[in-house]
């Protein structure tokens, strides 16, 4: 009885909050507890208590081109990443830098914030152009290097090809269903583009399911049934958040002479809710 009362009361508060902010894109009522966020409200470098950087071409960790023939050199310079005007700016540039022809940035919450299950959402205005590959994604903990990709699991909340400004992709990678065999679906905007205004990309992830959303429209649900006899690696491991822009690579092909640079991905916020 007591329990019931408490749970009813919790519902009341949640309902009140939802009503109070009726004009906003509130999360589905299942994931209402904000456990982590970055609103990018302080100008300057990204918050070192929330994010770490990947630097270089991947060759530094034995993964040249980050395993995808990507062409950028990741830096933590303000030319490539900064917070300004309430937004995170990740900027890909065409410039010679340490042997690469492009620079960009990639930030991760690895070791700072990792969790299992929840609603992960970000409001993003994407760049555009042939060979531009921005992503908002999650990667599973590798247990100090003892478990390797794709066994660790990967959830791509949003991937995008700059040459297809109306389409994004949501995917999961695991053992037996990685890279070209990932379980994936696409979402196409009608009469709008991803590079002209902000859109909210989200997954709602729980035991044996991951729901994919664009602007709170559910467009795909992936469950263990979708990976067949392969192992579902998304029920136990903790995952961290990644934001980046790659330039070139297997998913998008190389940029061409017509690709305008610099190209900037603007992120208004990243939020994580639990049940």
């Amino acid at each position, binding site marked *: 009885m007591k329990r019931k009362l408490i749970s009813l009361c919790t519902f009341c508060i949640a309902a009140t909050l939802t009503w109070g902010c009726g004009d906003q894109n509130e999360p589905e009522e299942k994931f209402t507890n904000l456990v982590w966020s970055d609103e990018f409200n302080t100008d300057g470098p990204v918050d070192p208590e929330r994010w770490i950087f990947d630097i270089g071409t991947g060759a530094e960790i034995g993964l040249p081109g980050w395993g995808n023939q990507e062409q950028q050199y990741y830096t933590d310079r303000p030319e490539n990443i900064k917070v300004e005007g309430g937004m995170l700016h990740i900027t890909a540039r065409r410039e010679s830098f340490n042997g690469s022809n492009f620079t960009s940035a990639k930030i991760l919450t690895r070791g700072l914030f990792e969790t299992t299950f929840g609603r992960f959402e970000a409001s993003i205005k994407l760049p*555009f152009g042939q060979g531009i590959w921005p992503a908002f994604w999650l990667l599973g903990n590798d247990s100090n290097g003892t478990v390797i990709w794709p066994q660790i699991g990967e959830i791509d909340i949003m991937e995008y*090809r700059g040459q297809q400004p109306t389409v994004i992709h949501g995917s999961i990678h695991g053992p037996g269903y990685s890279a070209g065999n990932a379980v994936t679906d696409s979402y196409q905007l009608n009469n709008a583009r991803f590079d*002209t205004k902000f859109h909210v990309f989200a997954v709602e992830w729980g035991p044996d399911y991951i729901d994919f959303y664009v602007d709170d429209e559910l467009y795909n649900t992936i469950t263990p049934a979708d990976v067949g006899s392969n192992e579902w690696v998304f029920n136990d491991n903790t995952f961290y958040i990644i934001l980046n822009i790659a330039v070139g690579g297997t998913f998008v092909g190389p940029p061409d002479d017509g690709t305008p640079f610099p190209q900037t991905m603007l992120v208004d916020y990243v939020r994580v809710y639990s049940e």
Partner: protein
Amino acid sequence: MSISMKNLASNTMKRVLAAGVVLLVTVTACERSVDGLSQPDLTANPEVFINSFSPGLEYYPYEGSLNNAFSVDTDNKVGNRGASMRFDIPNVGDPNGAFAGAIFRDDFGGRNLTSYNALTFYAKATRGGSINDIGFGQDFLGNQYEVSRKNLQLTTNWRKYVIPIPDASVLDESRGLFWYSEGPEDGEGYTFWIDDLKYEAIENMAQPRPSIFNGEAVTQTAFIGSSTRVTGLGYTINQADGQDVTIVPSSAYFTFSSSNPDVATVDVTGQVSVVGTGEAEITASLAGNVATGSLTVESQGEFVSAPTPTRDPANVISIFSNAYDNVGVDFYNGFYEPFQTTTSNDFEVNGDNILAYENFNFVGIEFRTNVPSIDGTNMTHLTMDVFVPNEVPVGSSLLARIVNNVGGGETSATATIFQNIGSPRLVSGQWVTLVVDIRGMADRSNLGQIILAADGDNNIAFRGQTLWVDNIYLYNADAAN
């Protein structure tokens, strides 16, 4: 309608232009009479040619073009009804017109196109061809808001094409609804068709990118009184399928500005006038979007002109001078590959044209391929005035050579001036006259080339310099002057 078009097709350009003048006056008078009020409501009819001509549309071919290149074709069309526009491009050398080109104009006073963002149509051709120019805004009334999509590639199947409007807000009284200009492909004529030609508000075109000077940051030496134009205009927009489309808009779509109007001003047409000493950057925007590319004017102040030649024109054959009528010239810089570094940045000051060679090592001026060569039998000397604006490096020398029978049985005459010996000297900041005595040439009846060079394989002192040249001409010193 077809009878009317045939009549118009046989009209000369002069009559078309005269009609345009009358219409322009009428429009201007109309504007005055409604001073302070908005334009009379013009139709926003987006259709140019769907199954037939839209009301008010008239056809005006270019002077010299094949007059009957255009016809209405009921056999080839998009969909089952009506007809398409058919264009028969002539073969090379067609005596009735070696190219096809025309404007299609609204003669009911114009349309209000402000609610659209593109001209669209379906097209196909009898072969893969590329139309040299196709667009809108050409009206024979000033062509103020002309747009061309250059080298539009066609296939043998119907495909839809888009010509974006860079800024529709200015097209509130648009008469030039469609134009094209096309010549033979590889010497051969062919046929293309256009159908469903109309203005549209297309969803999902974004990322407009205007440009000037082809997106490059250009620097130019200039002087008080000199002028130049903003060129290399472009506009690129990204379509929903991710493909960019690029057009060439007229200057009227752009807003130009100067960072320092005390040094250089720029008017609404993109004409740059240098009025002071110092540096000014010319930039542009289009509908609020900053254009890539710029012009940095480096004004050196007052220009010192070369001395005006005084020889009797009867005893002169002029190759480059504002003082004489010049003979035809193939080019003043042959950009000889692969060893030439010399680039050209020619300029004009107060009506005086100057050849400006930059990053100089050598350069060729030729007059023999597309123009007659020069018979200099009665001439005795070649002369030119040269000016080095920067300090002349120690040991510099400059050679001038004129060549007869270029490429077969060549003979030539040469003169060299030096920084440190002889007379005259190669000096900085003043005009020096370099004279080549050509009397020693066995034959000078087929002169075709002048070479200027930083002299000698071992003398590299003058390489990379800037050199200005004026008043290049042959003269007869023996004539009673």
